[in-house]
């Protein structure tokens, strides 16, 4: 019983942190389950995918209801993230636990470095629109595919780059059990000219299908343990719900610093396990 409650608490902490800092819970859930509960990395990745879908559905539902997420753009890129997830999900069962641990540690250090530079906090601020962002087609002009993917007040560009990046995000997501928002948000915002708020909401929506594509493969391969996934997913749901309500009252600067320290320590522990 105690272990079950601890898993709910761990999931809640990961969900709350993820929600407050705009990251999927996967970055925290995988190390929590491997280092905290001794689960094999691949099993932790499977559970993490379930948690990622859970948070994605809950938040994407709200974003779609409020007409913030770009459904057309999201679904177009989803075709490629799902393809990448399919590739990643198949590769994941061929790679050793040590190599996956090393890749995950590298990802944690990358996220920690990005957050230390302050990118995490800036995600909440709407930057100046770039030169492409406000180019809206003339009312009478024929619509191109890019016009149809664009939204109110912005025009999507560099779709080819987006397609390549989305495929890479799908592979990363399936290999490491993360939502991939850390790749998709900068991709849409910086490379494709999508406003940050829309990019974050659209990424949240996309994460669900990417993770679902690989979660199905994990379920068929017996890579998801219901006794671990159940309590952890409930915890993540509760944590993410609480986190979204606490967002305005928490000093994000200190939270981000704490998060960076936790990520670096976790990455070092994973690397020590690889070496050991």
């Amino acid at each position, binding site marked *: *019983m105690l*272990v*079950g409650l601890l*898993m*709910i608490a761990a999931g809640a902490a990961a969900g709350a942190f993820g929600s407050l800092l705009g990251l999927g819970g996967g970055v925290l859930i995988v190390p929590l389950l491997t280092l905290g*509960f*001794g*689960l094999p990395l691949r099993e932790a990745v499977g559970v993490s995918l*379930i948690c990622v*879908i*859970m948070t*994605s*559905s*809950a938040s*994407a*539902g*709200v*974003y*779609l*209801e*409020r*007409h913030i*997420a770009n*459904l*057309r753009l999201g*679904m*177009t890129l*989803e*075709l490629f993230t*799902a*393809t990448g*997830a*399919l590739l990643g*999900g*198949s590769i994941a069962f061929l790679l050793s636990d040590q190599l996956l641990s090393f890749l995950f540690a590298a990802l944690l250090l990358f996220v920690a470095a990005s957050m230390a530079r302050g990118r995490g906090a800036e995600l909440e601020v709407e930057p100046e629109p770039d030169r492409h962002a406000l180019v809206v087609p003339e*009312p009478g002009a*024929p*619509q191109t595919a890019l016009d*149809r993917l664009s939204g109110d007040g912005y025009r999507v560009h560099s779709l080819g780059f987006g397609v390549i990046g989305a495929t890479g995000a799908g592979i990363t997501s399936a290999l490491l059990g993360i939502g991939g928002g850390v790749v998709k948000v900068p991709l849409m915002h910086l490379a494709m000219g999508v406003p940050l708020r829309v990019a974050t909401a659209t990424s949240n929506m996309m994460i*669900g*299908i990417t*993770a*679902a*594509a*690989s979660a*199905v*493969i994990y*379920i*068929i*391969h017996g890579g998801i*343990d*219901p*006794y*671990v*996934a*159940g*309590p952890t*997913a*409930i915890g993540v*749901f509760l944590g993410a719900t609480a986190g979204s309500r606490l967002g305005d009252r928490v000093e994000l600067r200190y939270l981000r610093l704490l998060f960076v320290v936790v990520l670096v320590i976790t990455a070092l522990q994973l690397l020590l396990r690889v070496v050991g």
Partner: protein
Amino acid sequence: MSAGAGPVAAEGRSVAAERLIGRLLIAVTYVAVGLLSVGVVLMIADGISPLSGGPGLDFATLGAQLRALEPAAFLWLGLLAVVAAPIGRVIVAAVAFARQGDWLMVAISLGILAVIAVGVGSALTVTV
């Protein structure tokens, strides 16, 4: 494109479809959380440790396990609901795009479903 009622009506249908999809996602998430909660409560009541290794998914016995109030059955049903939510969202979106006559988006939606189907098919082939 003319500025008549056509585009405005299409935009209205698009917004309505997004709202419907959003509500669907939220509803399925709550159903999933409910099923998972029942499973976890039954797990605790039966004194099962989460680290004892849960059973795999077996569709053939799932119904009987649910009637016997087996915790794993409720957990699996909840997990399936979690995974089904985004897939169901793509299906609903495909129908909505078809009603709007946006055949490119219908093709993209079907492409996503095809990729997932290929994944399931290949995983089943490898497992069997």
